């Protein structure tokens, strides 16, 4: 009987009508398609730890806040771009065209964000930058909103702190690559404006097997402090040589930006990090109830991995997306979502933060911290802060 029903013309038509009605029903009843977030991260290759931290944090946010927001089910589509810009761009295109994502997020490095910016503009898809830290990024598309940090934003406070704390002569040692030169520029500019003296600016080659000669030169120059900016991984070598050559005993302070004492590997780096003073927007040891709960939940969900600054980028990015959806009543309109994100402020595990409504860039407190050993683990303990720091170049 079922077959004969379908094979008669009237039966077929009525079946068609019924199914069409069934399809359109949910739209009318709930008006909610899933909220698709395309998360593009380097999950393999040299920057895999960035991707690992951010993905874990995004998943943690969903686990702690439920997988529906404004009546829409949240669907996280995670893709690996291996840290190469062409791949990021291709994946972003696929996510926009095929998966029809509402929001793009992630972006571990500056070139990856820059490669995707034109696509976000063209498709009117909000692009939440969770890691990349060059100042110019949000200017490249009106759909970019950044929740991580900018390099000058976290570097300048180090210069401010040094000026206030009787550090007058500084040697800078940066790796000879884009971010290193930016950090050097920001630090030197602020420090000399404030009356400090830069004794020397050393640039070490990016592929540098041995820091010993550079640090010996620093020791002989007898500055009050050495400002360091090197890519993750080289920091250990610098701090080890710094300790081994007795620069600390010679009265030289080691200062830098917080990425050299990345929480993810701080324990593994161990003893040479003791006493290193850095400026940064996040420490896993940030003393707040929000952060304590965050660190605990994060480590529990990830086999003891400690959340680092990358992770809060992911976590806050998800928070901003959730809040924007709530504010717009579950909108898929890119312009409305970005408008809702502008000027938003909240308390993150890192501390209070907000989105500048004109630049769409992150505004946050930057902390001065010192590495100490507590309960057998190494932590960057915050002891001073600058409030509501904006990117100085904006």
């Amino acid at each position, binding site marked *: 009987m079922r077959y004969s029903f379908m094979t008669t013309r009237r039966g077929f038509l009525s079946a068609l009508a019924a199914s069409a009605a069934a399809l359109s029903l949910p739209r009318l009843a709930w008006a909610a398609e899933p909220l698709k977030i395309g998360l593009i991260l380097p999950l*393999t*290759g*040299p*920057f*895999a*730890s960035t991707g690992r931290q951010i993905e874990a944090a995004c998943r943690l946010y969903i686990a702690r806040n439920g997988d529906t927001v404004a009546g829409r089910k949240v669907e996280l589509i995670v893709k690996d771009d291996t840290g190469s810009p062409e791949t990021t761009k291709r994946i972003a295109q696929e996510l926009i065209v095929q998966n029809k994502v509402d929001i793009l997020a992630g972006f571990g490095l500056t070139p990856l964000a820059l490669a995707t910016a034109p696509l976000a503009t063209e498709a009117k898809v909000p692009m939440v930058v969770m890691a990349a830290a060059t100042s110019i990024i949000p200017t490249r598309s009106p759909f970019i909103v950044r929740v991580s940090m900018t390099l000058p934003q976290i570097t300048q406070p180090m210069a401010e702190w040094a000026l206030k704390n009787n550090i007058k002569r500084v040697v800078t040692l940066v790796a000879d690559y884009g971010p290193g030169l930016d950090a050097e520029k920001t630090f030197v500019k602020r420090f000399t404006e404030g009356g400090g003296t830069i004794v020397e600016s*050393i*640039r*070490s*080659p990016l*592929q*540098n*097997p*041995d820091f*010993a*000669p*550079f640090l*010996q*030169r620093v020791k*002989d120059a007898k500055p009050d402090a050495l400002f360091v900016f090197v890519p993750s*991984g*080289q920091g*250990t*070598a610098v701090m*080890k040589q710094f*300790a*081994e*050559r*007795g620069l600390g005993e010679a009265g030289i302070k080691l200062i830098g930006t917080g990425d050299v004492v990345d929480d*993810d*590997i701080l324990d*593994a*780096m*161990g003893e040479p990090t003791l006493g290193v003073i850095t400026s940064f927007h996040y420490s896993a040891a940030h003393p707040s109830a929000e952060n304590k709960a965050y660190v605990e939940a994060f480590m529990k969900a990830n086999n003891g991995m400690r959340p680092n600054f990358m992770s809060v980028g992911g976590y806050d990015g998800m928070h901003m997306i959730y809040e924007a959806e709530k504010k717009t009543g579950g909108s898929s309109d890119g312009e409305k979502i970005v408008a809702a994100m502008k000027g938003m402020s909240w308390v993150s595990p890192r501390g209070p933060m907000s989105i500048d409504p004109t630049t769409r860039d992150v505004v946050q407190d930057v902390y001065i911290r010192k590495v100490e050993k507590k309960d057998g683990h190494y932590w960057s303990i915050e002891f001073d802060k600058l409030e509501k720091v904006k990117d100085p170049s904006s």
Partner: protein
Amino acid sequence: MIGNFVGVVFDGVAYGSLLFVISIGLSVTMGLMNFVNLAHGAFAMVGGYAAVVMMTRFGVPFLATLPVAFVVSALVGAVLERLLYRRLYRASHLDQVLFSIGLVFMSIAGATYVFGSQQQPVQLPAFLRGQVHLLGLDLGSYRLFLIAIVIAITLILTWLVERTRFGAAIRASVDNQQASAGLGIDVYRVFSLTFALGSGLAGLGGGLGIDVLGLDPTFPLKYMVYFLLVVAVGGAGTIKGPLIAALILGVFDVAGKYYVPQIGSFVIYVVMVAMLLAFPRGVLGKRG
């Protein structure tokens, strides 16, 4: 000023010593067996990871992990020699290069998969940390240790190759495989052992180098230039050649970075070009 200079020379000699330990294995395989093995760094990395695993997972003290690094790399070398390298002894150098560079990429991917992309930690015993004050100079303890190791390795290797029966067999096999086989030397066995020895030395260097060079999956590629530099300048197939080359390169590299940091990392290449012009076959090279 003089004190600075002596300090720079000391650091340079120590750095050169490390370059020597890591590269000497390549000189052995390349010079004695005439095989261009670009995957040499992969064996060094195997040694490094073996040392790290012993230290972090099993709590073995640093010094005791060094022999383990040697043995593990030597075993891996022996197995790969039997399975893969042996097929390419008669192949052209281009084939050998392509094959071994392929191995490098596989080793990088493998290490990333197993250990992750991060730098590996190393805990040195207290007496190897810090500096010792000697005749008014501050000398790094670990650097003194490296120099001592190199002196030991040089003496042992020279003795092995020049004074023992096994060394004689290696030299004979290299010079004329057919005649050596005819004289009853098991050429393949000699090559296996030589290759294992070279790989083991690389592993030892990998373990020793973690503290100075670091250890991550890109190790074999990152330092390949340095291995090749030492062997090219020193001349493959000898022990003293690479030793002299490594020390010269080490001292010039450190001095360049200390006195003229603006062009510091460039100095080592200038020295290489100058030395290759002066000694096209390497300082003490047997082959071109």
